[in-house]
């Protein structure tokens, strides 16, 4: 059967490419797709929430995993949950919360699939305490090139397991994961909010007190001038106990029904988000936050996923789209962090809501992004003049400090940077080659970064 062809982009809506798209309804169908030839590569795709080109494959085959079966199957004794790779974290949370369990890691959106979350080894506000998703995955079911269906655990095949965690889909198509969930009494959090004066104050406060909080993140304002650059709103919290809820909530402490989402207009004029509108927005966001507020009870959605409240907000960046630049630098490299913030502010590349967070230890996955240090994520309009050169300059600083850029967000890193930022690339590549000796798997990201064999041709 002739497969439909579609132009695909990531969440940033940049660099569209055309591919055939298959939407298998069973693991057997996935196996059939991987048993056939794919001369221009094959890659799995979930909800397309990676910002860049990780889940597209120009001229090749994209396997849309959202039709795969795999409703969450929770073991209420152990909290282990087996779930299909195409299930969204939104659906997973809706299944888990009423039974008193929560996902071990959630990113800033629920609109990602389990398979994509594993392939990007996502992190959340609790990374400094709990690590990234890979720490909590007990087993993965993969369809390998050739069509073999294999279940791997960190014990049974550590090389393949950890190459798949953070492996950007280049070791096989993930069809199921078993995840260790965490017990919660409520679907609410107890949150402390605090405003900071500038970047140094933000860093100081986070370094001094993060360890007392399960979840912690700062939204920082790089558009604020006059010594206030990097001022922010620090939000920290933990899961609320039932007795901490207001009386009216105690009857249904686990109710989780995120509000109907607003929809951003599908079209916005280019340049709507410019330095003036961003400055005004950031000012309002900063002023809106309390100088200090403790023990506020917040729902899961507003605490973890504020941007999920507006569907399609990426369209506000206009037809050119947006890129996200997320990097990490090790502790001790605070001067680099300050320099990057200063450089962006000086270039007028101000970001609407930059997110700053402290990472704890990484995991054994060679391509996993998190490492102990500071991570900063910035959304920038892709049409901004001079952005390519500016970000290349920042790459140098980040790599020079021993840091790296997050591939799940990336849409523009030069290939030459990859091995510097990911020193265990060769180890990952050996595991990838073992899983995919003929180079069947490939993606635009893999081609752009020469990550896979397909990308390395000739």
């Amino acid at each position, binding site marked *: 059967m002739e497969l439909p062809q579609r132009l695909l982009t990531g969440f940033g809506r940049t660099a569209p*490419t*055309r591919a055939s798209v298959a939407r298998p309804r069973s693991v057997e169908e996935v196996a059939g797709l991987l048993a056939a030839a794919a001369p221009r590569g094959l890659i799995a795709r979930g909800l397309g929430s990676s910002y860049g080109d990780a889940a597209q494959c120009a001229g090749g085959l994209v396997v849309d995993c959202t039709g795969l079966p795999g409703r969450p199957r929770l073991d209420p004794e152990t909290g282990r949950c087996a779930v299909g790779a195409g299930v969204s974290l939104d659906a997973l949370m809706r299944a888990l919360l009423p039974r008193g369990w929560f996902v071990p890691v959630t990113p800033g959106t629920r609109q990602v699939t389990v398979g994509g979350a594993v392939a990007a080894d996502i992190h959340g506000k609790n990374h400094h305490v709990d690590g990234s998703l890979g720490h909590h995955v007990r087993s993965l079911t993969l369809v390998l090139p050739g069509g073999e269906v294999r279940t791997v655990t960190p014990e049974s095949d550590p090389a393949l397991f950890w190459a798949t965690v953070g492996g950007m889909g280049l070791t096989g198509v993930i069809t199921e994961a078993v995840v260790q969930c965490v017990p919660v009494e409520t679907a609410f959090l107890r949150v402390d909010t605090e405003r900071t004066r500038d970047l140094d104050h933000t860093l100081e406060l986070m370094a001094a007190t993060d360890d007392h909080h399960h979840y912690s993140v700062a939204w920082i304002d790089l558009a604020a001038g006059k010594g206030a650059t990097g001022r922010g709103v620090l939000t920290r919290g933990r899961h609320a106990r039932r007795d901490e809820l207001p009386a009216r909530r105690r009857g249904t402490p686990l109710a989780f029904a995120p509000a109907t989402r607003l929809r951003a207009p599908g079209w916005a004029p280019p340049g709507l988000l410019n330095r003036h509108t961003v400055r005004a927005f950031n000012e309002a966001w900063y002023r809106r936050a309390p100088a200090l507020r403790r023990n506020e009870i917040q729902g899961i959605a507003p605490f973890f996923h504020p941007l999920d409240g507006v569907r399609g907000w990426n369209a506000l960046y206009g037809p050119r789209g947006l890129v996200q630049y997320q990097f990490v630098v090790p502790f001790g490299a605070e001067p680099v962090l300050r320099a990057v913030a200063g450089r962006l502010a000086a270039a007028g590349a101000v970001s609407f809501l930059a997110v700053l967070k402290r990472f704890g230890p990484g995991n054994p996955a060679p391509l996993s992004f998190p490492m102990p240090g500071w991570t900063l994520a910035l959304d920038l309009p892709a*049409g901004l003049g001079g952005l390519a050169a500016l970000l290349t300059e920042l790459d140098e600083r980040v790599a020079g400090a021993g840091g790296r850029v997050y591939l799940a967000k990336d*849409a523009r890193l030069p290939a030459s940077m990859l091995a510097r930022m990911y020193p265990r690339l060769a180890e990952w590549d050996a595991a990838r080659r073992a899983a995919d000796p003929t180079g069947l798997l490939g993606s635009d990201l893999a*081609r*752009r970064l020469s990550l896979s064999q397909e990308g390395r041709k*000739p």
Partner: protein
Amino acid sequence: MKNALGTVGTVLLLGGRSEIGLAVTARLVRDGARRVVLAVRADEPPSASPSAFPFASPPAFPHAAVAALKEAGADAVHVVPFDAADPDGHAAAFRAARDRLGDVDVVIAAFGVLGSQAACERDPRAAFRSATVNFAGHVSAGLHAARLLREQGHGTLVVLSSVAGVRVRGSNLVYGAAKAGLDAFAHGLADALTGSGAHVMVVRPGFVRTRMTEGLAPAPFPATPAQVADAVAEGLRLDRRTVWVPGGLRVLFAALRLVPRPLWRRLSR
């Protein structure tokens, strides 16, 4: 792959001796392209007249061009035979380029001959040869490029058109008419490729100071190959369909297109 910010990895330059083409290629390499194929006519004698840009002492082609592109940052620069006037060889040139580059992110169709109107009028066979290269050669190469980019699901064909084709002058009739045809072909091809992941960008420079135009009196708003290169890089970044160099020519020609013919005849002598 062209990335989110318009940086490309591989470039195929058709007309590997074209000064404008080489300036564009050098610019894309400085911006991050790493592999290049220069497609050139094998028997073409090295050009005799020196030129300042982009390579100080050019014409020891291809060595100087290859060295300069490597100096600019290219990891690999290959030269493959390509004759615009010989469509039988076009498929092989594209195959060779693909073998060497993998995916071709950008094809720059920069070949062309200016010729002299007087020579064309003296010997219409010269006009035929000129039109063959400037129009028919581009049609064949453009269709090969379109097929390649469509299969890849991505890539951009950059076509060097000219303002000479926007409204044809009697004094530059043969060249202008061929460019008019090329310009129309390229825009139509762009429409045909919409939705395929492949793009066509038509570049309309005015008078560009190169070896090809040496000795000619410059037209108003002359440009340099470097300006064309900058405009192409910017056009790639912003997915432009039509790029004028310098940009002001867009406005000028919008007006010139409306000029009544008797006046146009006098203006364009």
